[in-house]
């Protein structure tokens, strides 16, 4: 069991760490939370066996939410762009702007799929919905992204604007 857990750690730590790093401005905080995820995972391993990768992401999501609640720098943490995007990259900047204009559930499913490369099963666990709902939400999110991408810049600065699509999942 210990060897299986180490295998899980080696395989999934980079993904979990990256998931957290994309959502936190502070890389050391992301590393702290990643370590905490695997500390909790080891406790679970001793009690119930080695958890799945999807379980790791759900735990990371929960720790991230707690971290945000506790943080005195909430506004900074909730900034859409953590670190690492070159300021002179027009396309990346525009993509981030469009992402920010989307509904939070659409934005998150796009990030989970195209940044974190979670499988449908893993994304469903993190989003607390069925796998079918993930695909529907992804489809609608892609449509909303596409619509927002075509809008004039002046129309895109308002988060959650109605122009980005209202379809729920």
């Amino acid at each position, binding site marked *: 069991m210990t060897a299986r857990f*180490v*295998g899980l*750690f080696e395989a999934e730590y980079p993904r979990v760490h990256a998931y957290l790093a994309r959502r936190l401005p502070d890389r050391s905080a992301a590393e702290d939370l990643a370590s905490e995820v695997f500390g909790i995972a080891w406790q679970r391993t001793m009690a119930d066996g080695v958890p799945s*990768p999807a379980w790791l992401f759900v735990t990371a999501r929960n720790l991230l939410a707690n971290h945000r609640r506790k943080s005195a720098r909430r506004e900074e943490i909730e900034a859409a762009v953590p670190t690492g995007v070159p300021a002179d990259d027009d396309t990346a900047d525009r993509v981030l702007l469009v992402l920010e204009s989307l509904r939070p559930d659409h934005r998150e499913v796009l990030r989970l799929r195209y940044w974190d490369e979670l*499988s449908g099963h893993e994304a469903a666990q993190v989003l607390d919905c069925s796998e079918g709902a993930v695909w529907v939400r992804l489809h609608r999110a892609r449509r909303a992204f596409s619509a927002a991408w075509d809008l004039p810049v002046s129309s895109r600065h308002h988060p959650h604007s109605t122009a980005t699509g209202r379809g729920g999942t």
Partner: protein
Amino acid sequence: MRRIRGLIASADPLRDTAPLAPSGRARAELAHHLSEGATMSELRERKGGLAVWVTAAGAVAAAAVIAAVLLNGADPAPPSADEPYYATSEALEGAADTIVRGSVVSSEPGELEGLTVSLAGVEVKEFVGSEPGPTIVVAHTPAGSGPETVALDPGHEYVLLLDSMPDGRYSLVNTTQGAVPVVDGRLAEDSLLSVAARDALGVG
């Protein structure tokens, strides 16, 4: 269809960053957890007598060895491709919506979210998981087009671990573990596919 995946991926804050491998601190913390866990196990088992204590002591020793490996970073690292890698049968099979054994009957160039891909027509013989149609289309990056590619050659048989897409086509869960050639009814390459899945697919 607009290249939405490519566009969004281009804004990934970590796109130019190497995979975030465990740091020395992360390895040290994990080694500490493992050692602690083994010690607790030893204390619990000692109540049961000498024989189980010996077993528990073995677990402590094993954890110590693994801790040393972790600290030294001499790990069985997965391939360093920029795509998921699954370390266990459970994780690998859990990532797939369906696992099929089938023959590639056609291959043609196509487009997926603005990217040039190969579209392989696959005649399904057996499957595990969600039921696919008798013939499915698998979109994949063709061999020779980059580091994360796979060859699905017409006339050859494979076990394919597949992720379903909203448009009804499929993609491989990854390029290193998602396609395994079948030769003479046997998997021709190493795979983490479980015995149960192999049996169900008739390649056990």
